[in-house]
């Protein structure tokens, strides 16, 4: 029995994707946790950009919302919301965009809008797009963090909120999307990456203790396992310690 949870493994694996010095567009939740873990470990100079207009925020604790005061207090610059999207995200100045998903298909298309029923009478109404469509379109690359199960990893998403590789090779170019699209999908079971030819998400790494069968069983399409599928490193003691210390700061939200 590992001394870490699947969510911790997922967050650590996501943090490891971030190279020091990169500019990273982060939303709240797992992306913000992973980005701040990276900044607190191997990437001290990661530039965190929050859609609230905080460029280069350096929070010493996990903000509960993208508008927490600590983000403005520690930012290199605080700009308006129109500016963060028009001058910073849209021209491709952000290297990495972090996205979550309620549904994800084999081409990395993301749904965070509605699930089930039809659009006007959905079974589940989700929060909607937020900054995701343009993050998915314009960041140099996209890292998706999402728990892997049959509800989430679906053959077809009920609504395309943010575009991955569309219907396959060449679609991003046809649509005129300038960013690179999803480079990696980090789940609680492992890591998926788009096949260089087909653009289909294939399993390239399993987290320690996870089997191929578990990964396939949690995927709503016939999951392709990459040749050279490996097993990733478990969380290092330091990574776990820092992550748990960060998580502990969440309950501490009022002390801004």
């Amino acid at each position, binding site marked *: 029995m590992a001394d870490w949870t699947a969510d911790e493994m997922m967050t650590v694996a996501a943090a490891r994707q971030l190279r020091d010095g990169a500019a990273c567009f982060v939303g*709240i*939740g797992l992306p913000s946790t992973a980005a701040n873990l990276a900044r607190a470990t191997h990437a001290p100079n990661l530039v965190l950009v929050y*859609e*609230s*207009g*905080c460029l280069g925020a350096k929070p010493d604790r996990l*903000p*509960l*919302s*993208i*508008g*927490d*005061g600590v*983000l*403005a207090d520690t930012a290199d610059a*605080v700009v*308006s*919301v*129109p500016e963060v*999207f*028009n001058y910073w*995200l*849209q021209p491709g100045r952000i290297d990495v965009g972090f996205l979550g998903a309620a549904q994800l298909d084999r081409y990395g298309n993301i749904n965070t*809008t509605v699930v089930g029923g039809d*659009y006007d*009478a*959905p*079974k*589940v*109404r*989700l*929060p*909607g*797009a*937020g*900054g*995701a*469509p*343009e993050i998915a*379109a*314009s960041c140099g690359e996209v890292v998706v963090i999402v728990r892997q199960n049959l509800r989430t990893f679906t053959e077809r998403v009920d*609504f*395309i*909120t*943010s*575009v991955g590789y*569309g219907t396959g090779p060449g*679609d991003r170019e046809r*649509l*005129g*999307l*300038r960013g690179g699209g999803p480079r990696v999908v980090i789940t609680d079971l492992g890591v998926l990456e788009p096949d260089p030819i087909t653009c289909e998400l294939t399993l390239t790494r399993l987290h320690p203790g996870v089997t191929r069968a578990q990964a396939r069983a949690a995927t709503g399409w016939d999951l392709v396992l990459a040749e050279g599928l490996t097993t990733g490193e478990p969380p290092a003691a330091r990574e776990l310690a820092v992550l748990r210390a960060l998580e502990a700061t969440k309950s501490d*939200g*009022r*002390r*801004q």
Partner: protein
Amino acid sequence: MPRFSQETGRLVATLVSLADGVADLVRDGAVVALEGFTHLIPFAAGHEIIRQGRQDLTLVRMTPDVIYDQLIGAGCARRLVFSWGGNPGVGSLHRFRDAVQHAWPRPLELEEHSHAGMANRYVAGASGLPFAVLRGYTGTDLPARTDNVRPITCPFTGEILTAVSALRPDVTVVHAQRADRAGNVQMWGITGVQKEAVLAAHRSLVTVEEIVDELHPVPGQVVLPGWAVSAVAEVPGGAHPSYAHGYSVRDNDFYRAWDAVSRNRDTFRAWLDQHVHRAGAAA
């Protein structure tokens, strides 16, 4: 609605009570934007709108969160124009979901956009233009659900981009840290899209932590001249459970607690009765 002040001879925003400001500026059936990007959310004004029993509002807001959950649950809204509806860092908005999924307490029409699209719709409104251009929505299912997103061709390169129509609320309501007696408004910290939302609107109501004799410059400040604002009301703590940078901190515990309060219609109604209706115009 800035008035020509007899004593100073200047165009100034009217200084009003919150109740009078809402009664005068927020009418049934109006298109109303309460803005504030996590910071400086005009909760007190939203509660006053509920107390005054406004109906059939088209509520506009990039990030409808707890205050819109309350307005929707209270039955004030007919339509919602937005880009992200959730309780930041906590989860779903249960009153919002109940309205969309079960039409309780009444059906809620939705028009949804991306943040970039909404921000640019306000920019177009503030700029006196009928539309704005961005790289956005492309390849998503969003444009199929609204008439306010259309392709546009660059007259120089032939490239096809996305146009969004201007947003022109009947009234925009925001909260700020300070105003002076001429109604010049000063806000700082995360100022979001408030300037654009106020300038895009036909009229505007600004609640402030305090009205001061003189506005002293603050780093990161955004100043709205009194002649560009309709009315200002002094409402200390008017952003709670959101916050006013330099005056208060975000009450994250309230946002967390809201999840349980709002899950159930009865607990929501009880909360509304106790904390909004009975609270009176004191807030």
